[in-house]
């Protein structure tokens, strides 16, 4: 990553804050951690450390609890919430030497694909101030793309790492469900949420992922499997490796440039010796509707704790308990969050549970089975990450369905619990776009290997937006 032999840790951190300040209008951060960060850097300068990520400035998505540092989840309802404890991910990264410089902006409770649902205002894409950065980890993607920080954490429930990585031209990976502890991650949809790193390159992501993953007894869904060294396989040859191409995905509705970019990348992999194999995922077209039953159902329950009783905001003028709940939640939550709580409550309600929630869980199982079958014969699956490059702020405002379709290609990996990443593979009208690589269960190493080899041969990941210092 950054080698700072010549300059002090303190100078690096000070430079980070001066950049953040200079590009304040990106609105990538909700809360900064300047004083603490500089103190930590000074400590490092006085007592040099050989920790793997010593002194690396990192931006933390504002959905991870940080002890003593405000954590809002992009919501008014947590506007004043200062957690008394830190998420395992935060602890793991800080124990490896990272300095958490601030908390990044995001869609409220990670519900959104454009960062327009944040209570703290939308984030801008450094590739165009009128463009969305994607979401929900939009602040993280924007900060890395603008070069404010070399690394950021994100979370991905239906594409929230991969989609903004694609729209901002950076690299991000969502690991296998259970690789990274969810302790201290404010839950959106517990069975889908997974944290992962966002950085410029696959190699950087591997460094970060090495430190983020851990088996955590505080999270019973955290996996007890061995965690490999993700750097080890980065340079393995792709000869004879098999790339699955999903013939059930209809690319005809996509912009020609997107399809062409995608096909060019596939050719690049072929030239490195990999083979393209047609595969079938017959139920993949059901991913979006399945997701929009399961995720809202879980969120409707997960967000019940925000009731104005114990923490977070409380409406001032409630006359009784019922009003306290109604007013606090009406004032505290934004429209998209309310919409999903409504959908979720509906699909779980007596008389509808079997038709919606139960059915969706059954379809989810079928989708997972499709992937299991496919991975018997292939090493990775490739698709475009998004249907197109970054769109204009406000352009999909009134149509939630159009917004939900943003996650068409990414959602199935969450439903199946599989690792998946996005890396820059082209530019369309001076806007970056990404390639998605989905891996087999626990096989992050192979997708990182594909991504790294691609980045050895291409320089899409080196492209930077105009007017951004690097």
């Amino acid at each position, binding site marked *: 990553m950054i080698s700072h032999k010549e300059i002090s840790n303190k100078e690096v951190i000070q430079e980070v804050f001066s950049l953040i300040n200079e590009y304040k209008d990106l609105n990538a951060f909700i809360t900064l951690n300047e004083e603490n960060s500089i103190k930590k850097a000074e400590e490092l300068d006085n007592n040099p450390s050989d920790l793997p990520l010593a002194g690396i400035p990192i931006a933390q998505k504002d959905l991870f609890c940080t002890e003593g540092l405000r954590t809002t989840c992009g919501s008014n309802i947590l506007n004043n919430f200062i*957690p008394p404890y830190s998420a395992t991910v935060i602890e793991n990264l800080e124990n490896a030497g990272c300095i958490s410089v601030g908390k990044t902006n995001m869609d409220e409770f990670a519900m959104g694909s454009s960062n327009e649902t944040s209570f703290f205002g939308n984030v801008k894409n450094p590739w165009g101030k009128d463009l969305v950065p994607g979401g929900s980890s939009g602040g993280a993607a924007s900060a890395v793309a603008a070069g404010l920080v070399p690394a950021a954490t994100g979370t991905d429930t239906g594409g929230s790492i991969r989609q903004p990585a694609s729209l901002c031209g950076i690299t991000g990976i969502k690991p296998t469900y259970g690789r990274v502890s969810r302790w201290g991650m404010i839950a959106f949809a517990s069975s889908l949420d997974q944290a992962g790193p966002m950085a410029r390159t696959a190699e950087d992501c591997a460094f970060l992922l090495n430190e983020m993953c851990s088996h955590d007894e505080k999270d019973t*869904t955290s996996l007890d499997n061995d965690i490999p060294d993700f750097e080890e396989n980065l340079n393995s040859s792709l000869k004879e490796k098999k790339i699955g191409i999903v013939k059930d995905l209809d690319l005809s509705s996509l912009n020609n440039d997107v399809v062409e970019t995608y096909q060019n990348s596939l050719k690049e992999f072929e030239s490195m010796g990999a083979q393209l194999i047609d595969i079938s995922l017959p139920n993949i077209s059901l991913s979006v509707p399945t997701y929009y039953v399961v995720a809202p159902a879980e969120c409707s329950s997960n967000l019940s704790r925000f009731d104005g*009783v114990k923490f977070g905001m409380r409406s001032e003028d409630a006359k009784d308990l019922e009003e306290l709940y109604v007013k606090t939640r009406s004032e505290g939550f934004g429209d998209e969050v309310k919409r999903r709580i409504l959908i979720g409550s509906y699909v*779980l*309600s007596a008389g509808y549970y079997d038709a919606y929630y139960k059915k969706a869980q059954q379809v989810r199982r079928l989708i997972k089975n499709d992937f299991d079958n496919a991975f018997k014969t292939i090493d990775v699956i490739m698709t475009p990450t998004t249907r197109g490059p970054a769109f204009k702020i406000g352009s999909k405002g009134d149509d939630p369905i159009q917004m939900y379709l943003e996650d068409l290609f990414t959602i199935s990996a969450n439903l199946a619990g599989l690792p998946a990443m996005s890396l820059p593979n082209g530019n369309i009208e001076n806007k970056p776009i990404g390639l998605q690589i989905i891996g087999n269960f626990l096989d992050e190493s192979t997708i990182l290997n594909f991504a790294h080899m691609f980045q050895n041969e291409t320089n899409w990941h080196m492209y930077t937006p105009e007017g951004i210092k690097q």
Partner: protein
Amino acid sequence: MSWETVIGLEIHVQLSTKSKLFSGGSTEFGAESNTHVDLIDMGLPGVLPVANKEAFYKAIRFGLATGANINQTSSFDRKNYFYPDLPKGYQITQMTQPIVEKGSIKIAVDDYEKEINITRAHLEEDAGKSIHDMFEGETGVDLNRAGTPLLEIVSEPEISSAKEAVAYFKAIRQLVTFLDICDGNMAQGSMRCDVNVSIKKSDDKELGTRAELKNINSFKFIEKAINFEIDRQIRLIENGECVVQETRLYDSEKNETRSMRSKEEANDYRYFPCPDLLPVIISDKELKEIKENLPELPEEKEIRYINEIGLDESEAKIISSSKTMANMFEAASSKTDDAKLVAKWLVGDISALLNKDNIDIDESNLSAENFGILIERISDGTISGKIAKSVLEEVWETASDVDEIIQSKGLVQIQDESILEDIAKKVIESNPNQVSAYKAGKDKLFGFFVGQIMKETQGKANPKAVNEILKDLLQ
């Protein structure tokens, strides 16, 4: 046509684990408000539950003791509703795969016995407490209890009277205390119950509409609440009205039940599998270990007391009916060779004192050790039974050591025949009239002489020796 009552009970048993069902928070009762609460109990954003295996082990003990099926794979669901003392806005419970299913328990009512089937027993977390009387115009929330493991034991609707309901509750209480899975303390809310009551005409095949009586925590109130509810429902139907399905609250002061909420107002709990918790798997090895270490149950104890120790049936029944009584019996018996004497004292004098004070034996000042010493002193002749009674009373009041009382009050029995003979001679000399009357055939006066000697010795004379000496001297 007569009315038939159909009752089902849901008993919530607080399991006596050290920590809570999903956190390391302490379950101790009576601490200052909100001091036994950790991040998980508060339902802070980002926290996750981890299931406490100990609670499963305790639930399994109950299942095994009631001959139930143990689901070696069981899972958790969320029951969603809003209330200030429910920190997460949902309760984690076992809806679809409870740990225990299909057991049964025997109850005894007056002159008959009956088997009541248990539908299921599942684990769930307790809520906190809302405190309405501490702050003027405001409600306080105490989360100490939040997350305490509960075993909810659901009976089949096979209970036919208030008396049977009480007997059932008592049988469950006896069992869970013997199994050492709950302290059975009703006053502290360790056991609470909801009662479903409906009535029907004897020859009706279908059940009547039921009312659910919430949160009753004493035997007396269960009986009263049910009897009130039966009367109310019969009156309604005989007046041509209908029973509505609703939740009713029992007011012990007014001895009445009143409506809390109707079916229409009832919450839709939107149950669904808790995505934070994987199914809990109990291995064959774990199950075997729990089986092998299952404590002796009341019926087994009763049989052992009769066959191996030689107690009367009635003594054995009384002593084995309560965990604390049986513990006392076994501990004291180990301190003496005379277990039957131990039983006699427990069933006699000690039971009388317990009844008088209306307490349980473990709440009394009498320790098993002290009691064992008392029995030992009786059997080795140090004190007489009569003196022992006064020693017991003193221990009951002050918890002092038995030997210390005997020493400090000089209660050691006089066994020395030469001392007793001297005293007897003195008594005979000073009562010539009574001596002549006795010798003339007034046998009853023998007791007078015994009494005089006891008076002289402050009751410390060995009665057997006194009898023999007097018989000799008065010949």
